[in-house]
């Protein structure tokens, strides 16, 4: 492995990741601030969320991140076939996340709960839907990585594109790891 003093992947994605994390950070801060002023409402509404499903989703994303790590490791050992398989596995995990989350959304909507129901749900839907779209985006990027892996575009020496996709995916995962306790658990 090469020595370097730059983060893995393309530097441009890190500028993007910084921007994304700032948005989430502001969102989280605003959530905390608003919650502090409406503790009862937030606690009460929080109980209607399905924590088990969210836990499953947390594990799903962490697992998918692990698969992505394996994918990068595989390409470094010049094993493009394994790399491809690991990415597909990660994508399937991403898909599972989306399905579970959609099920949750469907449940809320069937109960007539939406973005405008109250302040808690405003944050709940905004944050999770914003994150949901990030998972989708991450999957699009990983899919592009998979195609390129298949085409033999990555080598042990040069697989910046894959590292870039992996970095983004880890960010998406990390945001959820903050989001999960913040919205579903913390009281």
């Amino acid at each position, binding site marked *: 492995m090469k020595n370097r003093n730059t983060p893995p992947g393309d530097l*441009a994605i890190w*500028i*993007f990741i910084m*921007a994304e994390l*700032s*948005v989430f950070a*502001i*969102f989280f801060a*605003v959530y905390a601030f608003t919650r502090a002023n409406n503790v009862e409402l937030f606690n009460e509404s929080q109980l209607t969320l399905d924590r088990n499903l969210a836990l499953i989703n947390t594990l799903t994303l962490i697992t998918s991140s692990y698969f992505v790590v394996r994918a990068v490791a595989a390409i470094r050992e010049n094993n493009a076939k394994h790399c491809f398989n690991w990415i597909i596995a990660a994508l399937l995990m991403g898909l599972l996340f989306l399905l579970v989350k959609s099920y949750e959304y469907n449940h809320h909507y069937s109960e007539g709960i939406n*973005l*405008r129901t109250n302040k808690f749900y*405003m*944050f709940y839907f*905004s944050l999770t839907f914003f994150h949901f779209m990030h998972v989708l985006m991450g999957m699009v990027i990983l899919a592009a990585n998979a195609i390129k892996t298949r085409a033999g575009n990555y080598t042990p020496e040069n697989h910046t594109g894959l590292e870039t996709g992996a970095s983004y995916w880890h960010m998406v995962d990390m945001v959820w790891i903050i989001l999960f306790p913040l919205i579903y658990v913390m009281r």
Partner: protein
Amino acid sequence: MTYQSQSVAKPYFIVAIALFVGQILFGTILGLQYVIGDFLFPEIPFNVARMVHTNLLIVWLLFGFMGAAYYLIPEESETELFSPFLAILMFWIFAVAGVLTILGYLLVPYATLAELTMDDLFPTMGREFLEQPTITKIGIVIVALSFLFNIGMTMLKGRKTAVSLVLMIGLTGLAVFFLFAFYVPENLVKDKFYWWFVVHLWVEGVWELIMGAILAFVLIKTTGVDREVIEKWLYVIIAMSLITGLIGTGHHFYWIGTPEYWQWWGSIFSAMEPIPFFMMTIFAFNMVNRRRRNHPNQAAVLWALGTAVMAFLGAGVWGFLHTLAPVNYFTHGTQITAAHGHMAFYGAYVMIVLTMISYSMPMLNGRKEANSNKSQIVEMWSFWIMTVSMVFITLFLTGAGILQTYMQRYTDTPISFMEVQDKVAIFYWLREGAGIFFLIGLIVYVASFFIGGDEPEATVKDAA
């Protein structure tokens, strides 16, 4: 000038500057009407003068953008313009339509203009900045489409660069979002909501792409920095513009009858809107510092740096000042908005067009690279007079706005709009003074084109 057909840009630039003069003249009339309420009443009431002021601004910036594209695209594509004839034809159509529309505003009452242009058949008139008769709007669409076709075909047959691609995307977006100008629902909330799809997605969306592309082009030319580096940063900056600016639209949806969540979404994303402008400032200075050559057209470099700084101040800082919903609750629709509007438009869009004119006009006039020293010095004077004047206009309006916000909105004993206007009149007088200085700066600017014409070109001074 590398390609003969680039010369079609010249009439566009000349008309742009002429309309700019008109815009500022009406600006000084408006400023005076703020303190002498019956000035030119009832011949030119405030709303008419304001319409002329804002519409001239939009039209001359469009002339400037088109001229910039006609100059830039052939050079980037390394080929002659697809059809110089079409470009000149559209120039005349646009110029005549523009002049007729302005005359329409000035010569007959607005309601009569609506009757004359049969607005009832397809009503689109009477909305801020989109006051043009429907027939003019259709004309704008035709001109825009022909223009996009012309530069698009030019790009297709030549080299495709990031600069020309971004410019093309920006201009296409400009045309596409303008189509919302034709959607005028009876429902006022919807009307306002989609009105912003033109106004916001123009000035805080696709226009930033146009600005970025033009700035990148001028920096490539004047600094000699590697194109790869500049184009890379161009992409990052405009990515930031759209990432923050698209959802940033929400900062206009706080109080117009839309759901409350826009206060959160709008605040969070528009709070980040200064970032791309800040990056643009850093980018411009960085490129100039890393320059591989000293360009003899120092005036153009000054404009390029100026626009980066002033866009950040006007759009970034002054925008941020009142973009958060809890602040905007009190400042919405006050002179704070006017202050922001003035500096943002000047810094981002007036100055980028002037940057392009400054860079290309010497070549369009048959020079090799630059105007004479004498002419450049006059132009730089005009830069400073106009820019400093605009800073003062903005500061005085901000002063008026802060007082207005306090007396009319914030205090426990609010007083009426008209009383407040009387109390802050001193700021309006000061603003009018700064406005006169701006006009002087503009006259100096125009004069720079007629000074030192027979003197030799400026040469590169010792490398820094």
